[in-house]
């Protein structure tokens, strides 16, 4: 079974600072990788996903993530955060075949101060 580890539980940044949230997964085969965002009191929304091909994936709202297979990592980045990026960020993984479900990391709470 797959598992996901997010290193930072809480991150506090000032506006315009650069962001990198760590995500490592554990799974013996090919994986599909996702980042979801949950704004306060809201549901999860998909930021970006990786299936195959270019390991640098661009998502919505200026976010991107890089898949590094040798490190089993899929870190999320944004060059300049805004106050509106304050939210919980979840990394998730699934096997690309069959009916396996998304396995989520425990989330990283990002607080951006104006």
């Amino acid at each position: 079974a797959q598992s996901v580890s997010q290193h930072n539980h809480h991150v506090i940044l000032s506006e315009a600072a650069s962001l990198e949230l760590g995500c490592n997964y554990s799974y013996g085969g090919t994986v599909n990788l996702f980042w979801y965002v949950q704004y306060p009191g809201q549901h999860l929304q998909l930021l970006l996903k990786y299936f195959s091909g270019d390991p640098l994936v661009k998502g919505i709202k200026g976010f991107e993530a890089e898949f590094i297979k040798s490190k089993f990592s899929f870190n999320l980045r944004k060059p300049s955060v805004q106050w509106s990026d304050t939210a919980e960020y979840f990394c998730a993984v699934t096997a690309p075949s069959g009916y396996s479900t998304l396995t989520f990391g425990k989330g990283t709470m990002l607080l951006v101060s104006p």
Partner: protein
Amino acid sequence: DTAVSQTPKYLVTQMGNDKSIKCEQNLGHDTMYWYKQDSKKFLKIMFSYNNKELIINETVPNRFSPKSPDKAHLNLHINSLELGDSAVYFCASSQGRVGYGYTFGSGTRLTVV
């Protein structure tokens, strides 16, 4: 226009009661899920249905019983509610293989007092 809709949004009830949460999706997806998000925001799969058939049933107390009358609906019934059942329950849907990602509902915040 809501893709995945859940009702109710909030549910406050006493211990020992039985309650249901409903979920409907209008995306034409064939697979639906229930996830539980605890107070520490951890998301854990509970159930998954594909074309009305239960395909994933994680270690969940049998007080929780899902039901899918058709592939657009997935309901969750909870018997004899306990304090530890307090959480946010999210419904989600996907088309077949999860590789295409899930669409989540807005969640049902269940509080057991």
